[in-house]
């Protein structure tokens, strides 16, 4: 039988990842609504949190999807799951510090694969599954979402061009709230599932659950609550980059972008493609910049994001592998405890660094001048 203390530490780490997943991805649904002031920042993250919670309960069947088809599940151990999660959390925090909307799913997949490579070698990874289920959808989805958002933005502006400016902003703000809500709901159904799958995988690896068992309801409830809490925290740095940095957004554009994101995410879920909500949302926001006459996409920001997307899998993988060597090198329960202490220390250091250029609901919409750090410095210690 397994090691219950190690199992408990793995579950804590998995929930910590779920929390970072929540705040890293709030931007996907709400960045545009916050940027156009369709919703106040606090109300936007609150609404998104509630809808993520509801979404996590709506769709309950898919357990361990993140692992099956990507790694040899027979070779998964508690240590590899733990190391993969540590790698994913660190990468999510680093990208958040820089305000980059990278994929939480890729961080998780990369971390687990890196740990598996370190533990069992190349045969533990199903490379074809990785390419066809993760890499190809990741390359295609931003372009598809961007195309749809470009078409939607063009049509919406063409149809509404005779409208008075104030009627138009007011009307499309209502539409924006609806479409952003759909994206939040879809996010809850997708991303909370991933952590549920990882915890189930840990329970099976520990022998607590029989292979093929369904996800216990306490796992569903705790993952749903954690991702909602993370969402409510609001990843203001990422929200700022997506809402203000990439494109200057008006409410018809935000509406078209979120509609495209919602359509692509829901259709892919329907066809069994698990893809990154973040990459779809980013593609859509770029599309809404291209579809408006005189609209402008800041390609420097877009290029920085694309670079981060490419290096997410290998970077999270490298961190997962290092975590594995540390936890496995020390061995036993002590390995997990030391790993967790290191993880907390690194997270605290990143958080402390973020305080120097704090982004909060008060300054998230400040004018974009080339960096995540808002133009009005908040490092004076009197940040809102």
């Amino acid at each position, binding site marked *: 039988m397994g090691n219950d203390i190690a199992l408990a530490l793995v579950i804590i780490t998995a929930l910590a990842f779920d929390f970072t997943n929540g705040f890293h991805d709030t931007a996907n649904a709400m960045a545009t609504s916050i940027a156009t002031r369709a919703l106040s920042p606090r109300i936007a993250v609150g609404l998104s949190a509630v809808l993520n919670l509801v979404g996590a309960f709506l*769709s309950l069947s898919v357990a361990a999807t993140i692992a099956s088809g990507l790694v040899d599940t027979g070779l998964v151990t508690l240590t590899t799951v733990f190391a993969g999660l540590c790698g994913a959390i660190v990468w999510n925090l680093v990208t958040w510090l820089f305000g980059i909307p990278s994929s939480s799913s890729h961080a998780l997949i990369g971390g687990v694969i890196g740990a598996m490579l370190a533990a069992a070698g190349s045969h533990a990874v199903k490379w*074809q599954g990785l390419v066809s289920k993760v890499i190809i959808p990741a390359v295609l989805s931003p372009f598809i979402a961007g195309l749809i*958002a470009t078409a*939607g933005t063009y049509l919406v502006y063409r149809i509404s061009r005779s409208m008075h400016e104030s009627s138009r902003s007011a009307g499309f703000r209502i539409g924006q709230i*609806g479409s952003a809500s759909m994206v939040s709901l879809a996010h809850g*159904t997708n991303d909370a599932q991933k952590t549920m799958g990882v915890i189930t995988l840990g329970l099976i690896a520990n022998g607590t659950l029989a292979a093929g068992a369904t996800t216990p309801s306490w796992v569903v409830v705790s993952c749903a609550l954690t991702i909602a809490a993370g969402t409510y925290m609001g990843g203001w740095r990422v929200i700022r980059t997506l809402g203000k940095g990439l494109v200057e957004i008006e409410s018809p554009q935000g509406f078209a972008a979120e509609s495209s994101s919602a359509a692509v995410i*829901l*259709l*892919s879920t*329907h066809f069994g493609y698990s893809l990154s909500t973040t990459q779809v949302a980013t593609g859509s926001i770029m599309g809404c910049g291209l579809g408006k006459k005189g609209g402008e996409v800041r390609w420097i920001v877009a290029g920085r994001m694309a670079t981060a997307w490419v290096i997410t899998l290998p970077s999270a993988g490298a961190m997962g592998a290092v975590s594995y060597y540390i936890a496995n090198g020390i061995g036993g329960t002590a390995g997990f405890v030391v790993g967790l202490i290191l993880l907390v220390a690194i997270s605290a250091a990143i958080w402390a660094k973020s305080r120097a250029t704090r982004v909060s609901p008060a300054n998230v919409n400040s004018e974009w001048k080339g960096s995540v750090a808002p133009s009005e410095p908040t490092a004076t210690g009197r940040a809102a």
Partner: protein
Amino acid sequence: MSQWIDYKAVWEIVVIGLLAGAGLPALFAIGMRAIALPGKGHPRESDELFGGNPLDIAVAALCFAVVLAAVGFGIYIIVASGHK
């Protein structure tokens, strides 16, 4: 279907995605335009943004009803695909 890419699924996502992700916003815009009061280019007399004759309101109601029905169907897809 290739070993690497499911072209059929990609094709369907693009076509249905355009209908739902760009078509529905366009329909919403048509509904919005039908009931938006004029006033472009000059100041308006009142703060009212929306109104119009019964025909305009009926057109708008139809557009919004189709959009809402599609959203409902989208939620149904999430729930159904989660309980296969």
